């Protein structure tokens, strides 16, 4: 059997020690609930297993993707794989014994420091699952810290359905009301928000870049509104965008959530790495794991999980969250990627997210039958495009050229959504060519 290690002789000796002749005798299971069927799964050699699973995966076609919409692809340098796959990292557990797990603790402390630097906030945890659950945790935090008595959170009308759905599950238990506030011209309608915010508002959320790929031009105004109403101001962003953009703390963010998986993410289908940072005065209400610096008996600085009394394994139903397993290994990977890039490399990568989509839009806008982008303003990675032909037909047409783009419903229109990053930038030519052949409708 693979991975099970006893020789027959050892097994006998162990059975003797235990005092049974068959391990099955150790199973203290009433007959009535014994399983005597088969699962019906065949065993495979390592080579066969690889062939089977990889063969299955190969059923998806090889496409050049211009997707985005919450999951973004950046080139991850080889060194991230090589280092993060080291067994001492990959196969270790949560750091309940800090003396023997200093390495991972330090890496998580460094990840937290990176998030603190990017957000400008005082505290960051060492990850939550993804940007949607991070927003859920932010809303629960607002509920706990009760800056107001409000139990309503305000989210922008363009929050993606998939994120909204997660938020609805998070707000269901504590009976928090989720309301949307309007956008206008592709960004937050500050006046509309002002009309809606009030004493019952516990948190206002806004994202930059927003769901349309537009960088919000005046989040300070949103922050002021939240502040005026004693509501928390929660900003959504990601670890690459934040390298370039004004620090959220500088314009009043109390909480920052979003995706740090834009750095270091392994090849994957939609995994995330939720980042979560907040003001230092919420420290004891932070969800998830925190790593702190302390001292060991030798008088040296050492790291440890800290403030564990917030956590489920100690505080149980009064814990700040139910998080046990988080995304530690992905946090390690993000930190390695950031360290490899350095501040210059990270800013350059972010700037490519601005110039790449802008250049693509300019070329597409020059084609007959396309308006790109739909909304004014500076874009980051992605933009919406108006098409003369039905957007779905344009999508099909591109698909035949091996290019994946999306049609989205936006403000009542079917529009094309296009995402450009460092990994598909050199294929923009192909996209423009494909679109050029499809300008005026069929």
């Amino acid at each position: 059997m693979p991975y099970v290690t006893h020789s027959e002789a050892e097994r006998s000796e162990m059975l003797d020690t235990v005092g049974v002749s068959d391990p099955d005798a150790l199973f203290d299971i009433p007959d009535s609930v014994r399983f005597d069927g088969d699962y019906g799964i065949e065993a495979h050699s390592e080579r066969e297993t690889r062939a089977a699973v990889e063969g299955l995966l190969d059923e998806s076609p090889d496409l050049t993707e211009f997707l985005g919409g919450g999951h973004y692809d950046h080139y991850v340098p080889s060194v991230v794989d090589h280092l993060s796959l080291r067994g001492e990292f990959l196969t270790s557990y949560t750091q309940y014994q800090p003396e023997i797990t200093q390495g991972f603790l330090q890496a998580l402390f460094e990840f937290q420091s990176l998030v603190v630097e990017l957000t400008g906030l005082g505290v960051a945890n060492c990850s939550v699952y993804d940007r949607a659950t991070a927003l859920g945790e932010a809303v629960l935090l607002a509920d706990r810290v009760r800056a107001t008595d409000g139990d309503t959170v305000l989210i922008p009308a363009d929050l993606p359905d998939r994120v909204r759905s997660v938020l609805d599950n998070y707000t269901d238990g504590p009976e928090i009301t989720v309301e949307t506030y309007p956008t206008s011209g592709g960004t937050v309608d500050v006046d509309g928000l002002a009309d809606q915010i009030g004493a019952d508002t516990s948190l206002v959320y806004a994202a930059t870049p927003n769901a349309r790929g537009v960088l919000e031009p005046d989040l300070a105004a949103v922050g002021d509104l939240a502040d005026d109403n004693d509501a928390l101001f929660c900003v959504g962003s990601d670890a690459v965008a934040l390298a370039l953009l004004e620090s959220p703390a500088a314009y009043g963010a109390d909480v920052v959530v979003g995706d740090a998986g834009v750095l270091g993410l392994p090849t994957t289908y939609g995994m995330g790495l939720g980042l979560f940072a907040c003001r230092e005065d919420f420290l004891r209400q932070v969800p998830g794991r925190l790593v702190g610096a302390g001292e060991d008996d030798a008088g040296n600085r050492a790291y440890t999980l800290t403030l564990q009394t917030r956590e489920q394994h100690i505080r149980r139903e009064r814990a700040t969250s139910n998080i046990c397993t988080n995304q530690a290994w992905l946090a390690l990977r993000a930190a390695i990627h950031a360290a490899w890039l350095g501040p210059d490399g990270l800013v350059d990568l972010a700037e490519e997210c601005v110039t790449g989509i802008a250049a693509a839009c300019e070329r597409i806008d020059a084609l007959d039958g396309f308006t790109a982008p739909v909304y004014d303003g500076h874009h980051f990675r992605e933009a919406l495009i108006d098409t003369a032909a039905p957007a779905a037909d344009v999508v099909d047409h591109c698909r035949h050229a091996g290019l994946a783009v999306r049609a989205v419903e936006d403000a009542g229109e079917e529009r094309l959504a296009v995402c450009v990053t460092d990994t598909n930038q050199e294929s923009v030519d192909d996209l423009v060519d494909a679109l050029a052949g499809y300008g005026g409708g069929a």
Partner: protein
Amino acid sequence: DAPHQQARWYDGDRYEPLLDEKSTDTVTVESSLPDDLTREELTLPDLSEPEVTRHYTRLSQMNYGIDSGPIPLGSCTMKYNPAFTEDVAAHPGNRVHPLRTDEDKQGILGLLYELQETLATVGGMDAVTLQPPAGAAGEFTGIQVAKAYHEANGEGERSEVIVPESAHGTNFASAAMAGYDVVELPSNEDGRVAVDALEAAAGEDTALLMLTNPNTLGLFERDITEIADIVHEAGGLLYYDGANLNSLLGKARPGDMGFDVMHFNLHKTFATPHGGGGPGQGPIGVSADLAPFLPTPQVREADGGYETYEPDHSIGRVHEFMGNWLVLVKAYAYILRHGDVGLERISETAVLNANYLAERIEYEVPYGPFHHEFVASADEDAADVAKAMLDHGVHPPTTKWPEIVDEALMTEPTETESKARLDDLAAAFNAVAATDPEDLAAAPNETTARRIDQADAARNPRLSWHALDDT
């Protein structure tokens, strides 16, 4: 000499310096964006690739994983993670954007379908969602599904979740997160659910009983059928916490015991790496009655391929996409590698190993017979025992929990430890048992760091390198 002296890099009053202590740069941000959108400068570590590589190589050597030696943390099921699953997970076919059309991601959907069907079979469940990104997320999802079911049946007033005292902390926290009151259930003198107490607790307020079986003492809840009847008769549902499922593979199925909802910890039962705390993945299985409430999307066969669909009364999503996809791939590969025979051998060996180790150690081990884990009782401070065990080249068990056992040492060796390693573990336990208490308090000596003052770290929280400058 000690069996293991951990690597240590040292620089002044710290071990390996922090990234930012090695080399930091402040860059002035220049961008095509207007100034009011961008930050003025960014200060971050600025290291060459050689220095990055050394930093993390050194940190890894100052970290202990299953690849270093045994980690018998009870209920954590720290078993060996087969190396080949990493290569399967790195296969280019995984690089598929989640917003592709169903037609364009048939490989992904095929794997999702095969895995969900397989898990349904293993759990004895009718339907499975793979979406929850961790075990606790699975608990929360399962409770939300149960809640939606009750509400759909006009039983939305049910407000309580019953949880045994020896249950995992996440059970309590997840139930609370879903808005339920938690009713704690005492254990009886043999370490199992006190059936009479359950009878008293179950009633019209009961939404759910959450149970781990075998429980955290490694004991199978023999009265499971009676327990299920009590809860069902009260109109409640039964939730199975899958943390200890490893010991039931091929032997018993939660669905057959009367459980209506369960989660699987793929990173435990199906050996995907714990990665220093995650990512995990916590699929849930449900009975047919609850299937319409599962998260969206689900995957089904259609026209010789696969398609996604939204269940009729879906609770929606618990993750923006499909959780931690790579964990799903690795778990599927692991299951395919083992097959029926291999999976049953896993549970048999895991249970044999736990019982063998329990026989070999000199600390008192109350209760029994054990399945996959046992809880020994230390004569002295269990935390001290753990620190001293570190000096013997092994990772200690979970300490001081469950509280039902005095100074608990909750020990789960798993099936992938050889007899020699189990003997090493026993030797470590027994050496520590024979150690002078003062020496215990001075341990560990052979790890990278000496004993860390955790209380002080919590009193004076310094949670980023920015905080270090202040002190």
